[in-house]
């Protein structure tokens, strides 16, 4: 498949470049909102909406924004869309608004969105950036949904709030708590690596390479450490 074809831009976000399991971006909301299926889908779709909008706008403005001031510009654009989504959810889905709480506002600092602005939307055309936003957003939603399914089915014995007979008698409650989040996430990353037979570029260690702040740091711990290891 042509690497730059529109279809591959759309599909790469789902597995091979899945933002959560492969690029390891957006870890905080992944762990925090994957306790229930409903919360995971809500969070995923809210972030997808912000991602598509911000990708399109940043791509439109990519020749206007000076590269030295691009990060503050990106942050303002993203924060604007987050506010819109926040108000929308508050007005029409108040139950979801209460469930997501502070994590909704924290979409602003979700590395996936800033990361895609930096890695993709700032360099590509509007159409491609929109597709990238859809793909990455759905990849994020899918990843959240997978995590939430494991955590809610085995941790709370229900799926999207509907109780599952038998399993609900043997629930492993720790899965819905913080330690379970870390555990399931680690297992998922290992599973995706196994399933893709190492085709997906595995991060041997957490690195700044895809981190949007990498643009800031230049000589941070990460690059300094790599130098030492060599």
């Amino acid at each position, binding site marked *: 498949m042509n690497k730059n074809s529109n279809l591959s831009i759309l599909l790469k976000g789902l597995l091979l470049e899945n933002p959560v399991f492969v690029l*390891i971006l957006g*870890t*905080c*909301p992944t*762990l*925090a909102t994957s306790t229930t299926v409903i919360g995971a889908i809500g969070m995923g779709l809210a972030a997808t909406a912000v991602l598509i909008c911000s990708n399109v706008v940043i791509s439109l403005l990519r020749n206007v924004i000076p590269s030295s001031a691009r*990060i*503050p510009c990106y*942050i*303002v654009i993203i*924060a*604007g869309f*987050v*506010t819109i989504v*926040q*108000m929308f959810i508050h007005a029409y889905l108040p139950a979801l608004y209460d469930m997501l*709480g*502070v994590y909704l*506002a*924290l979409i*602003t*600092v*979700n*590395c996936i969105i*800033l990361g895609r602005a930096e890695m993709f939307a700032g360099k590509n055309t509007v159409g491609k950036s929109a597709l990238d936003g859809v793909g990455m957003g759905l990849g994020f939603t899918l990843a959240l949904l997978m995590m939430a399914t494991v955590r809610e089915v085995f941790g709370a014995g229900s799926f999207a709030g509907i109780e599952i007979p038998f399993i609900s008698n043997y629930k492993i409650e*720790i899965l819905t*708590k*913080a*330690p*379970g*989040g*870390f*555990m399931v*996430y*680690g*297992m998922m*990353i*290992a*599973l995706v*690596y*196994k399933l893709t037979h190492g085709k997906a570029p*595995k*991060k*041997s*260690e*957490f*690195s*700044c390479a895809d*981190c*949007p*702040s990498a643009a*800031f*740091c230049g*000589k*941070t*711990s*990460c690059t*300094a*450490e790599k130098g030492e290891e060599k």
Partner: protein
Amino acid sequence: MDAFKSLIIILMSSVLVNNYVLSRFLGICPFLGVSKKLNQAVGMGIAVTLVMVVATAVTWPIQHYILNVFDLGYMQTIVFILVIASLVQLTEMMLKRYIPALHKSLGVYLPLITTNCAVLGVTIDNITEHNFNFVESLVNSLGCGLGFLLAMVLFSGVRSRINDSEIPESFKGLPATLIAASFVSLAFFGFAGVVDKLFA
């Protein structure tokens, strides 16, 4: 005396019970990224604590004396992230000018903090979640920062042991780190209820 007691409760619960990294999942990126070596973990932890307290000292008055007065509550996210971004820049410049030694050791961590969700999280939490007054907000931010520092330091110790062990191929690297984080988080689970019982 009661006011003092409530401040201690806020501090203890934000350090131990509601630890931002291990039970609320905020600031996971630096927790996983900069916890490889002890000195870096300490540097990052101190920098985050500093920025959290300063950011709270600025955003709380903005929320209560500007946004609330002019009915601009919906601008919270945009205003706060801009304030934090500029504060981080200012802190860096001030440190560079007045305390160069500290800047040399903390400087590299400061820019990373702009996009640290723990900082934005604590400033918003102080206002919407807890509805704290100014002093309580500062204490809560200090506690969250110290909790972050504690988690970083503990975890850097755990991580140095992971490097020495034999791990299945698929679990090498991040998966093993996350599972280790899960156990550290399990340890902090034991603090739940401690604060309420201790001061009841």
